């Protein structure tokens, strides 16, 4: 065998060895999810009898019925959907408005607004929680979904604003000038021309905000201490295992219910999301 051929087959060996190692690693990585789905269909004895088989003896849908109806996950799901949708809409609304004027207009106080927004990147988030609870109480929104939405939409969206501002600043000036000639006002220009053009930015902001709101925990936790009916999925999950410590299949069914929507969502927007994150680090 010639030296070149042997080095080529050596390279192929290393390639397939890497693939094998990676495949094992990925199996380990997703194993908790496989175990979770499998456990959600088993009966308790099957889990405790220490079988490692991922295929349940029979599909026990009653675990899901128990989690959904008895344990209140139908309510938690509704709360999570409402809080997430409300937060996404409010964030798009306020970040696009601010991004628009920062990106296209020069006005007194512009530098101050940008400076404050950049400064919010550096301030650790942990500071804020006690005053946020106090503020929510003062507003009379404790144990209320609106209190959660405002708190989630109110902090940590400087990146979205700067994303909008960067996009709007690149659009040609003639766009407004033509619209002004046609008699369009400030609101019409924004609502009819600018916001529709910013579709890709809106999509990125919506996806990132959706994931952050769906997965949020501390804010919904501390704002719903007094109202189990207002809990989100993440908060409800902790409460569920606190009172049903031995109900493994019920826990697994509840966790699967909570994770499936966000995983399905992710598979639909994956490409988009990965590119958005990658773009952020390059910039």
């Amino acid at each position, binding site marked *: 065998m010639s030296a070149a051929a042997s080095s080529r087959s050596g390279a192929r060996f290393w390639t397939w060895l890497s*693939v094998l190692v990676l495949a094992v690693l*990925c199996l380990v990585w*997703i194993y908790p999810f496989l175990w979770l789905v499998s456990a959600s269909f088993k009966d308790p004895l099957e889990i405790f009898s220490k079988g490692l088989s991922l295929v349940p003896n029979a599909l026990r849908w009653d675990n899901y019925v128990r989690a959904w109806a008895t344990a209140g996950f139908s309510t938690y799901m509704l709360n999570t959907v409402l809080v997430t949708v409300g937060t996404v809409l409010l964030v798009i609304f306020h970040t696009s408005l601010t991004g628009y004027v920062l990106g296209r207009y020069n006005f007194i106080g512009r530098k101050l607004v940008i400076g404050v927004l950049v400064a919010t990147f550096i*301030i650790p988030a*942990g500071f804020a929680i006690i005053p946020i609870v106090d503020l929510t109480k003062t507003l009379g929104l404790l144990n209320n979904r609106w209190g959660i939405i405002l708190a989630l939409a109110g902090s940590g969206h400087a990146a979205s604003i700067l994303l909008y501002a960067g996009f709007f600043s690149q659009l040609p000036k003639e766009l407004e000038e033509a619209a002004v000639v046609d008699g369009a006002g400030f609101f019409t220009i924004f609502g009819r021309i600018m916001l529709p053009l910013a579709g890709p930015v809106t999509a990125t902001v919506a996806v990132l905000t959706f994931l952050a709101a769906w997965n949020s925990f501390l804010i919904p936790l501390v704002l719903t201490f007094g109202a189990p009916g207002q809990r989100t999925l993440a908060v409800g999950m*902790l409460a569920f295992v606190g009172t049903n410590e031995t109900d493994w299949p019920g826990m697994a069914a509840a966790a699967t219910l909570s994770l499936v929507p966000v995983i399905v969502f992710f598979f639909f927007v994956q490409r988009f999301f990965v590119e958005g994150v990658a773009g952020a680090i390059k910039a």
Partner: protein
Amino acid sequence: MSLSHSAIRPSIRRRLWADRWIYLFLLPTVVLVASYTIWPMFASIWFSLLDWNGFERAGRFIAFGNYAEIFADRLFWNAFANTVIFVVVAVPIRVGLALLLAVVLNAGLPFSRSFRTAIFLPVVTTAAILGVVMRFVLDPASGPVNEVLLQLHLITQPINFLGRAGLSLYTAIGVWVWKWLGITLIYWMAALQTIPADLYDAARIDGAGRWQRFRYITVPLLTPFTIIITLITVVEATNVFDLMLTLTNGGPFFSSEVIDIFVYRQAFAANIPRLGYASAAALLFGVCVMAVIAAQIVVVARLRRRVAEQ
């Protein structure tokens, strides 16, 4: 409006009036950021000077009493040390492992997209729910991890990953790396794509091996990304409330209690909440984090200047 080019420079008041739409557009963000970011910062400083249980409308002013108590509180320093251990151990593992994976996946292996998706899966899911789930997966009596280790004869006794003091913090670090590795992987893959392929080709022609190409091309060109990725990861490692509360709740016996959990316990999980004391602890730690970040930025700027001068 600033778009119209008026010849005369209008007075400030007229300019403000002409730009009233702009300020109207800014209003929602200004109200939200002022209420939920800026006000909390100043409120924290004020709260930290109070003895306040949250049941009464206002607390009692005790000046620096909370700070004096914190400096003598062994549990605060325990939490502080745990957070430092978390950062020092978890950040290099996450950043290094992700870089290794990114280099391997970037080499154009078959199935590399599927691998990336699998590693990324935990990133999009809810940390608080994964914390609960991993309690069951790592359970010493019936959890699958111990079962696998026992069947492979790697251990003879089940390991109590989360229930043993001295081990639970490191288990939590492992779970945290598992949860977030995918996002760091994406960062590194994006960074690697900025390196032109001809550099590697040229080095290969010059006879550079795989390691040499990594050492003399990849590593130097990745330096700016290394700094920013490490910085992001350090900040994230000081912010692990969701996972830690649901996974260990700081236990057993405070052995995995990080600062987030300490603050939460003082403010929300105690029989008599101590909002002032918790604020002081959060503030003290927040100032430390900001100081570390500022120091990193200063050092990096100085290094850059030195490199530029050479």
